[in-house]
């Protein structure tokens, strides 16, 4: 057996071992609901597309996320028109539900003021004061 082929086979063998380890790790990841490729459920990310200071901020909603001006909110909204605890986003099997927490200046989804809890879909816009967010 020529040395060059042996060397090649040897590297292929090690490669296969690592491919196996990778597959096992990936299988465990998907089993536990963690994906190694950072993919996530559709429609549970909010991106600030218009904001004076927080432009481009991405928020991944896991279970329940509270947004507001208070530093104690899960996500801080830097907008003078936002209330201390302005709204709550709850992740669902497909997408999210938005609850307005009795904010002074209101929350607008696709330009309409939120009165009751509202389901969000990919592409919806959320407006709080001067801040505009988009669901992705």
């Amino acid at each position, binding site marked *: 057996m020529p040395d060059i082929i042996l060397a090649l086979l040897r590297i292929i063998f090690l490669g296969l*071992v690592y491919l196996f380890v990778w*597959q096992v790790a990936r299988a465990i990841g998907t089993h536990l609901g963690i994906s190694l490729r950072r993919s996530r459920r559709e429609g549970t990310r909010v991106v600030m597309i218009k904001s004076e200071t927080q432009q481009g901020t991405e928020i991944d909603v896991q279970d329940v996320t509270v947004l507001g001006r208070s530093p104690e909110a899960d996500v801080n909204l830097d907008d003078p028109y936002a209330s201390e605890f302005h709204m709550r986003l709850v992740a669902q099997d497909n997408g999210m539900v938005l609850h307005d927490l009795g904010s002074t200046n209101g929350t607008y989804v696709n330009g309409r003021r939120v009165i009751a809890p509202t389901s969000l879909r990919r592409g919806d816009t959320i407006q709080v004061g001067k801040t505009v967010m988009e669901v992705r």
Partner: protein
Amino acid sequence: MTRNTEGALIVAASVLAAFGVTLVNFAQDRSLDAQTALTFLVFLIAFGGLHLAVRAFAPKATPLLLAPVTALTALGFFQIYRLDLAMETDRASFQRWWILIAATLASLTLLVFKGTTISILRRYRNITLLVSLALILLPNLPADWGFPLRGLSVNGSRLWVLLDVGFTSFQFQPAELAKLGLVAYVAGYLADHQRALREAKRHIGPIAFPEPRQLIPLLITWGVSVLILISQRDLGASLLLFVGFVLLLYAATGTTGYLVAGGFMGLVAGVASYLAFDHVQRRVIAWVAPFEHYEDEGFQIAQGLFALGTGSLSGAGPGLGRPDLIPNASTDFIFAAVGEELGFAGTVSVIALFAVTVAVGLGIAFRSRDTFRKLFAAGLSFVLAVQTILIIGGILRLVPLTGITLPFMSYGGSALVGNLILVALLLRISHEEAP
């Protein structure tokens, strides 16, 4: 991951075993022979069969455990085969038989528990304990009496039992099965006494210590460990038993004091046995200064380190190193042999597979709601983890070398049987605890 992915990964691991054997043959200028097909078939039948047994008897068991275990067995097997060629032994074909036997017994374990639950081990835990202790003491039977079951002394350790059935004889290490029974007993005991053990605490500084009365089980286990050390001269089993027990006690109570007390008792026993027994002394000398004692005590460890060093990053290649220069390479030092031929890359993949296996086991413990199953799963995982750490640590000279074999990879039938049954028990627990 679904059961189907598990099946596919088991086939892949069987291919890995056969590919390794083929590569060794090529490297040794041998032609493609029946070994390749035989190895593939044995792995497929054994682990594929176990996979089917899980489908039939424990369908809700985790599908994450069997694949890494198959891969570890495959990596160990190809190295055993490779050492066979160098040493002109015939261990690989024995190991193939043992793989089949162990997978059959693991499947039978699943079948036995199918009609009942694993909690019967808790209910009859005193019987489990007696059977385990009897198994541990079995090798102390006289070696030269007429009865077909005899004790056997190998390399100064009295661990083996010889069963003579006339035309042929079997050797096995009953302690490999006894350790499972002991874990079941301790888990049952702790599950019944958890509250008392957890609440009886005294705080000394920041560390909570248990009431002296609650230390009695710890003292008993410590005594049994020392007894094994004296009567059978088996440092490894005695250390495994004690460390496993202390860890399980800590897992059950969350009392740091047990770790401190256990560490202290272990230290006392360690120093005392170092002073009293020359076989412990030799181990420590070989650990501290293997190269100064290269000619005698340190030879095995030094050869193991040379092998790992020669292996370097990607190894000499399957069949191209000299792992046969390490004494007892296919049993104690299989990790160093893999390190020589597959290098750092190979050893890292081995450690990753062990880490995954233990993590899945502990995951089963975390998700269990029943206390006994939780502690049993944790204990079984600890047994795997402690064995792996002790032997790999011993080879890497992090801890003194103990006579423990690497689970799933080392040559040895009893250990393979014990460890695959351990896996079957973990699978059964995860089946019973599945939502």
